[in-house]
């Protein structure tokens, strides 16, 4: 059952082994993506957004482990590839940008080198040859290449660094760009710039995007579809207007009602309780201890992600 034409993640389970026990970080994540589509992933901190992204890239490391599931990318299961084959996907077909752009750049190499390295790898040319394409890449993201290529990461502002990251990520013209909170560390003004830039480049480059964010506003404005995650599960997926105007899952509702919005004075509800400990997660639906509409079944059975309305998927027993 392939729902997306580009990427299909199904039943993805990831655990981390720690002293307190096994953290069941992903508990059967379902996610799909069509070509040129933009998917937003939102959720509270620790719900597994980054782990999902890293699993797609196969970058989960000790003490973590992908226990089961499939990640089909162009109908090829990435989890079954060996490291060498995977290296041909990373940075070429799928690339990624991260939250702290300055920290994500290697402090001892000049910007130009780091971009050239990426280009060299993706086109399978030498780094020397790749330098000729650095100006184009930098200009694409609106940077003065003459000046920027010889700077070190610490000499960049956050906004510039994120532009460099974007240039690096898109230089290889990947099919899929995964952006893990690309703007959370930036000011609103810069955030707006970056998002606009991304929007432009992605439209031109016809890349599919997974945008991870905890700002529902960003997801709403940038993405075609939004997936809401909670404690290691995708609990609701829908078109972005739909999900904000007609949230079905109690968690999604709670989340939306917690957001202060300018010019819309209302009481903020918040969601009672805290995110569960994933070492010993609640049985059944992991949200049930915080859910004000929970009933018996919720604590015993994990709801699966079902299409309740056209293109609107929810994992909640209320809608069965």
């Amino acid at each position, binding site marked *: 059952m392939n729902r997306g034409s580009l990427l299909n993640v199904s039943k993805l389970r990831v655990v981390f082994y720690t002293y307190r026990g096994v953290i069941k970080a992903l508990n059967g994540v379902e996610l799909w993506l069509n070509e040129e589509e933009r998917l937003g992933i939102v959720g509270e901190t620790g719900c597994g957004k980054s782990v999902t992204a890293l699993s797609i890239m196969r970058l989960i490391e000790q003490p973590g482990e992908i226990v089961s599931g499939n990640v089909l990318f162009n109908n090829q299961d990435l989890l079954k590839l060996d490291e060498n084959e995977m290296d041909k996907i990373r940075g070429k077909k799928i690339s990624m940008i991260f939250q702290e752009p300055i920290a994500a750049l290697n402090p001892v190499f000049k910007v130009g080198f780091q971009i050239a390295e990426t280009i060299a790898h993706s086109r399978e040319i030498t780094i020397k040859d790749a330098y000729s394409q650095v100006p184009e890449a930098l200009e694409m993201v609106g940077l003065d290449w003459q000046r920027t290529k010889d700077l070190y990461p610490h000499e960049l502002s956050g906004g510039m660094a994120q532009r460099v990251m974007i240039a690096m990520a898109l230089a290889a013209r990947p099919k899929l760009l995964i952006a893990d909170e690309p703007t959370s560390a930036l000011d609103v003004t810069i955030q*707006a710039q970056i998002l606009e830039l991304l929007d432009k480049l992605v439209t031109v480059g016809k890349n599919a995007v997974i945008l991870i964010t905890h700002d529902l506003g960003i997801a709403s404005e940038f993405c075609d579809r939004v997936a809401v995650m909670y404690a290691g599960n995708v609990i609701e997926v829908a078109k972005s207007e739909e999900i904000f105007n007609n949230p079905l899952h109690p968690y999604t509702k709670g989340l939306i009602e*917690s957001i202060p*919005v*300018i010019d819309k004075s209302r009481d*903020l509800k918040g969601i009672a309780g*805290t995110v569960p400990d994933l070492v010993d997660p609640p049985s059944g639906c992991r949200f049930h201890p915080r859910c004000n509409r929970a009933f018996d079944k919720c604590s015993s059975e994990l709801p699966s992600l079902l299409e309740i309305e056209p293109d609107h998927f929810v994992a909640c027993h209320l809608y069965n």
Partner: protein
Amino acid sequence: METLVKVENLKKYFEIRKSFFSKPLYVKAVEDVTFQIPKGSIFAVVGESGSGKSTLGRTILKLIEPTSGKIFYGGNDISKLTRKEMMEYRQKMQIVQQDPYNSLHPRKLIKDIIGEGLKIHFDMRSDEIYVKIRDILELVGLREEHMFRYPHEFSGGQRQRIAIARALVLKPEFVVLDEPTSALDVSVQARVLALLKELREKFSLTYLFITHNLAVVDYMATNVVVMYLGKVMELGSKDDIFKRAAHPYTSVLLDSVPTVGRGKRKHSVPRGEIPNPANPPEGCVFHTRCPKAQSICQQQVPDFIEVAPGHFCRCHFCR
């Protein structure tokens, strides 16, 4: 309304020396700030990162010494007081810091973290202190047994509550809240904000509320000051700022905020980035990024003009 805190021409410059021999450079983190905080208000300070918000809050509390200017608390000038003389005010003025993960001593039990101030300021027996801590923890939504835990056992929201408890246990009148929710999830943020509102009612507190999130300002504040590169750009009541914004910078900020449920929306994207604070632009500091900038803006520093009663703006064109 009665004024609780008044700040006059407050300046805080940080010296950064590039080398042993070269002349020192200054970061003008707070430059010539003047305002009054009415008693009982929630006085919000907004601005981009590095605009001097935290420095302003810390200077008012005299956690760092102001370079010049006056700070009045309840009519008394506290800007020149020594550490000893400040003691009395320390109890009345408190702070909740930006980062809940680093604001609690990692090797102390919660009861010691909260009890420290009590031991310093009040001559209390330990069982009295115990009761006080228990009560304040209950007030912020934690329980007695939490006293005997270490900070790392708490989530961000809980830590922020502990920090609030630490500030409130001294029965202060004035609390600086330095981005109390920026590290928290929205669902938790909503609850912390509500808690803060509730506590203000209960103890008739006055807040200096620092944030970069305009939506939160809209939800919380009664008065707002907008800062840019250490300078106040605009100052007024909440409605002045949100409904009748006079300064282009305020408009830019407002315009940049992403909003849910409105579908894809085209922003008027602001230009450029915040300049190096050690080397701010001549004239109006905002001119490099201002959509309305004229040649005058590059040369002349705009005055701080009262565009309406209680609504001030620092722009050549704000009238």
